[in-house]
């Protein structure tokens, strides 16, 4: 038996028994509170990780698709892309000189696409966009962004490249 003294009819608990029981309940309660807070923290961290990863995958896919649609013809020697801090304009979307692929950031959302087809993804902050290539001849772009606090970088190249000065016969 757990009781510390023999059972004597309809007596109540002694002060010592009450104190011990209260301490036991307090200890169990404390353990449960600590455990539940760590469980909540772990699950919210896992949720953020999963959301960030899923968003990064979507951003990566959207950037690759958009950049892959850029196909300047080989004679377009004046092919240039307009890269600024918060946006990027790339001509020759679908091979058409006036059609632009746009990547721009606004209010914690990244917008990627053309005038016809555009994707906007929230929870993404644009860090930087730079041109990939040598001697001012862009071959693709590198986009650095954060999705739910984690930083990612996507490098994507165009589906065709104009002939550069070194390629001239």
């Amino acid at each position, binding site marked *: *038996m757990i009781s510390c003294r023999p059972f004597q009819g309809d007596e109540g608990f002694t002060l010592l028994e009450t104190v011990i029981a209260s301490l036991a309940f307090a200890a169990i309660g404390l353990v449960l509170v600590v455990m539940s807070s760590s469980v909540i923290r772990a*699950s919210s961290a896992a949720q*953020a990780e999963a959301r960030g990863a*899923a968003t990064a995958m979507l951003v990566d896919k959207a950037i690759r698709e958009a950049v892959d649609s850029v196909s300047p013809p080989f004679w377009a020697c004046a092919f240039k892309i307009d890269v600024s801090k918060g946006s990027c304009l790339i001509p020759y979307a679908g091979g058409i000189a006036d059609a632009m692929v746009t990547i721009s950031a606004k209010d914690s959302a990244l917008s990627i696409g053309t005038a016809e087809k555009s994707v906007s993804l929230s929870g993404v902050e644009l860090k930087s966009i730079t041109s990939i290539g040598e001697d001012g001849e862009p071959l693709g772009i590198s986009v650095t962004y954060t999705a739910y606090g984690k930083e990612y970088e996507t*490098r994507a*190249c165009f589906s065709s490249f104009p002939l550069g000065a070194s390629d001239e016969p």
Partner: protein
Amino acid sequence: MRTPISSPGKAGASQDGWTTMDAIVALAIVAICASAVLGGAMTLGARGRSLSVKARTHIAEGNAWTDDIVSSVSR
């Protein structure tokens, strides 16, 4: 009033308190439930991390492919 929790099925159970075995079984049940909850949370955390690693690997593969093309064009 003293209100002992009786263990059903035992002789003279109506006035008995918990036996040591009862307490151990109850504590074991609580411990199992708590460890199951903790285990679930840890599994969830591991899944989140593995998804993050998968995303990074996927993006890195795409970047490597881009780098290959860019280096071959630049050459």
